[in-house]
């Protein structure tokens, strides 16, 4: 009978199975949509169950096919994996809902659903993986699917953007695989726990090997998570994708690679080793550059989606920053930000997508006065923007608060100031959009709000921003436990 212990693999399996079935039933779109949403809902339920289980009984270790480590593949569902699964499944479901009910942007819908389900399966696999090569396989699946959900739009720009993404992502994959090879060389294992034990002794013997492996890993995962300066594929890719894809990519996919990196750090390397290596300082510098560069580039954008994409580059910088500061509050801030930025960015991309769908306008200079026609949509955009700037009362403030406190805890006041400067830069590029929308003269008489079903996800996400802005207590214990895994 169904037992909670199989839940981890069931999440991946459900999504995979549905991904294969949906194109088969494409003649009956209602069924396809139903299966799509149903799979999403099941995964949410499973994620909740897993989280409750982990909070109660500690880390779940699942041996796939009951082949145990070190030769079998393990899924290690600790607090971090549970948290990440929860974030991915809930936000994904909201995006699924939007895609199903919004006007279609792609021709082959059933195929689109299948690709998204594949992507989701891979994301869940990544956050739960306990075996480095298994992680690699899931990373590859997700990379392919992520490229595909951009290309499926079919326009010139999207094909070119997706090809560039594919090439750079493949480079990253190569780097990642090479680093796995190097690590396998010195540890003889592929299970992350066993590798950590082995590294404790062999790291001293083969320092060059380890450093090379880490360098390639940072490059590999850095390309995929758009860490500066490896982010160049992102603005084109996220801006030229269909709305739902942009939301998925910016809100979840890039984060998942950061999560993968963090898990490798504490599960495979072990934080003791991480402290010794110069990796921390390098990441701090890169994160700071990402925050500044992303914000500065965003300021000059007129195309709204490109602006949001550059904003993502900066936000990923925050997560790397929080992680590299390595104080309790900074790490908590980074982990919060994974959820909070997912909510905010998804809300913004979906709402902006609605604006583009309803009005055809893609640029800030075109949307003057539009807020009068679409009050709810723009209210959501305003809330999302306020949250990205970090106005107190919104969720974005919480992550900035923790990150800044964490920076002060680490004695690095400069980074606290950096976070504040980036808030100012965020205001500079988000506020013109809102002001133009509310105060310009209105020249488009026939634009109206989307259907209720489409407005629903926007409202839910907005409420989430306010809720987490004022009462984050609900998820706080989970975040604390997750942070403890890293800071110990």
């Amino acid at each position, binding site marked *: 009978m169904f037992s909670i212990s199989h839940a981890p693999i069931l999440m991946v399996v459900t999504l995979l199975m549905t991904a294969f079935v949906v194109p088969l039933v494409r003649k009956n779109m209602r069924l396809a949509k139903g299966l799509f949403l149903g799979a999403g809902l099941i995964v949410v339920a499973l994620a909740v169950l897993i989280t409750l289980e982990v909070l109660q009984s500690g880390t779940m270790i699942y041996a796939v096919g009951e082949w145990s480590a070190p030769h079998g593949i393990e899924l290690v569902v600790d607090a971090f994996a549970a948290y990440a699964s929860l974030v991915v499944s809930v936000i994904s479901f909201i995006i699924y809902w939007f895609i199903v009910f919004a006007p279609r942007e792609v021709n082959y819908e059933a195929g689109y659903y299948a690709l998204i389900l594949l992507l989701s399966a891979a994301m869940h696999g990544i956050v739960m993986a306990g075996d480095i*090569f298994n992680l690699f*396989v899931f990373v*590859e699946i997700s990379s*392919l699917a992520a*490229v*595909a959900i951009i*290309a499926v739009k079919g326009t*010139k*720009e999207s*094909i*070119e953007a*997706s*090809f560039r993404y*594919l*090439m750079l992502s*493949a*480079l990253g*994959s*190569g780097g990642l*695989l*090479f680093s796995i*090879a190097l690590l*396998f*060389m010195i540890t003889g294992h*592929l299970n992350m726990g066993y590798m950590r034990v082995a590294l404790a002794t062999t790291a001293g013997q083969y320092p060059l090997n380890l450093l090379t492996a880490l360098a390639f890993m940072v490059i590999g995962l850095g390309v995929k998570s758009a860490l500066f300066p490896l982010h160049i594929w992102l603005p084109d890719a996220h801006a030229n994708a269909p709305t739902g894809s942009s939301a998925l990519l910016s809100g979840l996919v890039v984060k998942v690679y950061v999560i993968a990196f963090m898990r490798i750090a504490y599960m495979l390397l072990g934080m003791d080793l991480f402290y010794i290596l110069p990796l921390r300082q390098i990441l701090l510098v890169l994160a700071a550059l990402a925050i500044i560069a992303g914000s500065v580039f965003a300021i000059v954008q007129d195309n709204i989606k490109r602006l949001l994409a550059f904003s993502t580059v900066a936000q990923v910088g925050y997560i790397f920053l929080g992680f590299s500061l390595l104080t309790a509050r900074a790490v908590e801030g980074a982990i919060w930000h994974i959820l909070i930025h997912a909510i905010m960015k998804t809300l913004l991309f979906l709402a902006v997508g609605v604006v583009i769908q309803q009005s055809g306008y893609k640029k800030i200079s075109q949307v003057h006065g539009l807020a009068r026609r679409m009050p709810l949509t723009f209210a959501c955009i305003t809330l999302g923007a306020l949250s990205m700037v970090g106005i107190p009362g919104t969720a974005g403030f919480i992550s900035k608060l923790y990150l800044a406190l964490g920076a002060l805890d680490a004695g690095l006041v400069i980074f606290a100031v950096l976070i504040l400067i980036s808030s100012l830069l965020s205001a500079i590029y988000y506020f013109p959009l809102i002001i133009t929308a509310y105060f310009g003269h209105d020249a488009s008489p026939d634009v109206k709000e989307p259907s209720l079903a489409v407005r629903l996800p926007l409202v839910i996400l907005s409420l989430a921003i306010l809720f987490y802005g004022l009462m984050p207590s609900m998820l706080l214990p989970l975040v604390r436990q997750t942070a403890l895994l890293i800071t110990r």
Partner: protein
Amino acid sequence: MALLERLYTNIYYLVAVVLFVIGFHTMLTHKNLIKKLMALNIMDTAIFLFFVAIGYRQGGQAPILVPGVEKFVNPIPSALILTGIVISVSFTAFALALVVLLYKHYGTLDSDEIIAIRGKKHV
């Protein structure tokens, strides 16, 4: 002398790294899309070579249990690269499909030209 000695024992790794660099470099610098794809494959193959070389044991037999044989080559890397080859093939197939579409939209396989065309069209 000792250097040559070390190079000789690690020849497989060396070749793998050289191939990797060739592939990496070509992917980044050459303009023709098909060449980029070929370079990607070379890079992936280089890594597979590296993996297989890791598993090799001097005097080891193929990893099939046969009475009388004691020393085997490590079977794990072979399993890994099988997966890796599949991944590489899927990537290549998908990329080639995209290249076909790109040719259809832009009429050229030169990445610089594509960027130029896009730059003009892009408002």
